[in-house]
């Protein structure tokens, strides 16, 4: 296998805001958390913002224990709201967003619903430099074709009042991901990239299965996966068909 070209983390730090949006379940949180960890490891000053107001579970605030050892700076809603249906930002969030000197990594909620909740901070974000990454898993509903991706992209841009600057290819079927599946995802996204003039910044893969992105001609971000609410099952015990 060829040596993967890894993304240059320090080059990402040239922007004040790195925003991660996309369809619900596209992998935004895993990407944002992993980038924050890599920046921490490279001693780049960064703050991770949990701004997901859509999902009831598997947000950054739900995996704090798992990522505790990395000592990340995290801004997230009060813990008391974790198992309540209260989509609220912490009162100090504007101050934190306006703080200078740190790269601010924003994990926003999925779909236009999630993206819409950051439109209120548009003035702060637009007065600084930002990259808005649109995370795509072409094995998820509503982003499996070029047309669906473009429609989804427009809806998220419209809701957030911000322009997407890059795509991130995160096509996967969890433990059933293969190189063929990722390459099919790349082929679809490459066409979308051509039509929209939005470049593909990088491709993601589970760090234990990096072979699945072998040959994909964009830099790689290898992910340590934190969001695993239930243990995985092998193929045979996953299905009960005798009923």
């Amino acid at each position, binding site marked *: 296998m060829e040596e993967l070209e890894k993304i240059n983390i320090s080059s990402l730090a040239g922007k004040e805001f790195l925003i991660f949006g996309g369809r619900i379940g596209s992998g935004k949180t895993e990407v944002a958390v992993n980038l924050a960890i890599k920046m921490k490891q490279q001693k780049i000053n960064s703050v991770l913002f949990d701004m997901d107001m859509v999902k009831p579970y*598997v947000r950054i605030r739900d995996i704090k224990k798992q990522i505790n050892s990395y000592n990340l700076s995290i801004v997230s809603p009060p813990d008391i709201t974790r198992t309540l249906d209260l989509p609220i930002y912490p009162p100090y969030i504007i101050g934190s967003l306006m703080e200078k000197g740190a790269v601010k990594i924003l994990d926003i909620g999925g779909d236009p619903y999630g993206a819409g909740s950051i439109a209120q901070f548009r003035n702060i974000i637009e007065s600084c430099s930002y990259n808005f990454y649109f995370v795509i898993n072409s094995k998820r509903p509503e982003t499996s074709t070029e047309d669906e991706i473009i429609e989804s992209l427009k809806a998220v841009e419209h809701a957030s009042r911000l322009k997407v600057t890059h795509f991130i290819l995160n096509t996967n079927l969890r433990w059933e991901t293969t190189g063929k599946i990722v390459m099919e995802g790349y082929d679809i996204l490459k066409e979308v990239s051509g039509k929209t003039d939005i470049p593909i910044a990088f491709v993601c893969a589970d760090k234990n299965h990096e072979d699945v992105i072998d040959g994909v001609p964009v830099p790689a971000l290898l992910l340590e996966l934190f969001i695993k609410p239930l243990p995985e099952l092998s193929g045979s015990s996953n299905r009960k068909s005798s009923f």
Partner: protein
Amino acid sequence: MGEKVLMKGAEAIAEAAIRAGCMAFFGYPITPQNETPEYFSRRMPQVGRVFLQAESEVAAINMVYGAACTGTRVITTSSSPGISLMQEGFSYIANSNVPCVVVNVMRGGPGLGDIAPAQADYNQATKGGGHGDYHSIVIAPHTVQEAADIMFKAFELADKYRIMVVMLMDGLMGQMMEPVEFREWVDVKNNKVPVWATVGQGERGQRNIITSLEILAEGLEKMDIALQEKYKEIKSGEVCCEEYMMDDAEYAITAFGTVARISKTVVDLARERGIKAGLIRPVTVWPFPDKVFEKRAEQVKFFFDVEMNEGQMLLDVRLSVNGKKPVYYYGRLGGIVPSAEEMLGELEKLAGGKNENII
């Protein structure tokens, strides 16, 4: 089978219902199952079917009742507090003998509780919930794929027995993403209106009447007996249970849904440590697979029931085991999901002959 996609349980049950020929969704939003109505709201208009957000759960279940009276495949989805509001409708649907599918994505309770996953509506789902001597078929899937497969079966059973079928899931099953592939679409163009449906007299020469009302006690008793006969038929023909590593098991874990899913890992971990554990997983929790427990009571040293409630299925397990072997229980409440490691720890202590935490 089609191409595999990555879906949340909440999305997969909606897509499966649509492919199974569900023509109408009525419901009211509640966390943690909002992805399901949201999915229906986009997909149903695409395929020319009905999505309607009702003004409340009470309205939604009565719309389901109405649609079911026409023999239309119809569904509603909700979570624990919303399901509580629907109980009167469930009881009317039962005594009216009309088919429908209801999904309960359970959350922590009682009362408003929280939005974390729980299994504390087992009694409500399997023992009635609403008033009167009635049952619904209650199915508890443990993976996204199984939930998608079972949705087709749920509509078939509902039509076959003219009964409400409940898919008993929890928030975690709804939110977790797994690879899933769907069965072929049911061709709704060939659907025939059932002879009992209230869709106009047509050429039958007489009206169909669907009602849960019977003023005379003797008449109502006949209706009740007919219901019980139907339940007997379902009990004899539609029980479904999965046994995992039970052939040589000395200890049987019993669990449903999410906990059963974790239990498979516990069985694997226990066997690595030389403890011969297996899992009995009721797929239908009503009708309950009591024969499986009767049979395994001859084989195992004890049963170890684990649930995300205070021991609700435990009572059915104890009734089925009928005192032949000890039945121990371990559970977490309020929306806490037990980990494989903590369950293994309890099992190890029991197998070693002592566990002070277990009742």
